[in-house]
């Protein structure tokens, strides 16, 4: 092994690593090409859509956010809209489980506007 400046530098710096704790199986990526905690692509932390969607069910993603401002019709029910339509629409504080469900409007749109799922 020659002690070229490049080699020395590489040895000193090593490859940056990051430790990721997996709390449940759902946090494991589906493909072998994806790393838990994000794939480093160049200098970016890259996540595939499927991985991000899996994270939605992580226990860590279920706790309510702190400091959520009260904005009627956005983060909280709007008094006005509450009476309209099906109450679900503006039930601002959607529970995480409920948030996962596919609203009926989505099903309608799929036939004409197919999304790769």
């Amino acid at each position: 092994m020659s002690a070229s400046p490049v080699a020395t530098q590489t040895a000193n710096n090593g490859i940056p690593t990051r430790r990721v704790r997996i709390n449940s199986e759902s946090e494991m990526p589906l493909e072998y090409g994806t790393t838990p905690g994000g794939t480093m692509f160049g200098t970016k932390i890259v996540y595939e859509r499927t991985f991000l969607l899996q994270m939605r069910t992580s226990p860590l993603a279920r706790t309510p956010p702190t400091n959520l401002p009260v904005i009627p019709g956005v983060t909280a029910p709007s008094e006005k809209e509450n009476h309209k339509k099906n109450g679900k629409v503006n039930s601002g504080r959607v529970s995480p489980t409920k948030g996962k469900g596919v609203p009926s409007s989505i099903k309608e749109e799929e036939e004409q506007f197919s999304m790769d799922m």
Partner: protein
Amino acid sequence: MASNKFQALGAGLSEDEEDNAHENIAHTAAMSVKVKPLEVPPDENPLQSTYCLWFTRKPSCKHFDQSLRQVGRFASCEQFWRLYSHLVRPGDLQSHSDFHLFKEGIKPMWEDEVNRYGGKWIVRLRKGLASRCWENLILAMLGEQFMVGDEVCGAVVSIRSHEDILSIWNRSASDSAATSRIRDTFRRVLNLPPGTHIEYKAHNDSIKDLSSFRNTDVFTR
């Protein structure tokens, strides 16, 4: 200095909302208050950038930057879902509402230093598609799927009376390699049908004609 997104939007769409000022969007969290960096605990999956989610609803007389309301910030996948799951989906917002999801430090305004020489791609969606498309767009942004370095600034979903509009903003309107790459990814992640118009508008032109979505350059495929 008078130029702002909302005055412009208001110009063409005034008859719709009569009640827009019924809540005090005015006192905004906004503006360049120095905030502490968000911490990402070791057991969460960090994002490349910290993001801020903003909300606006068309005001009667306020300036755009006064009506900007910060909804939340996040720096990890988990923090994102925590916030997102507690919000109404964009398709269920009142007309003339917008969500703006921008990298922290970039205000969702044409005049922001970072946006000044930038522009945006926009896609007009028929009613009913906004929630799903918005989710696909922001997941691609948070996951760094655009592969254009730091070009992407943020994304906007604009709920209007007869259509909804998605935009993705980038820093350099003149960087055709970056903008076309963003356009292609935009199209891919939304799975847009062939023939969909996708339009580009430099913020500088928006400042001139005081319009977000008019006088765009249209691209079709």
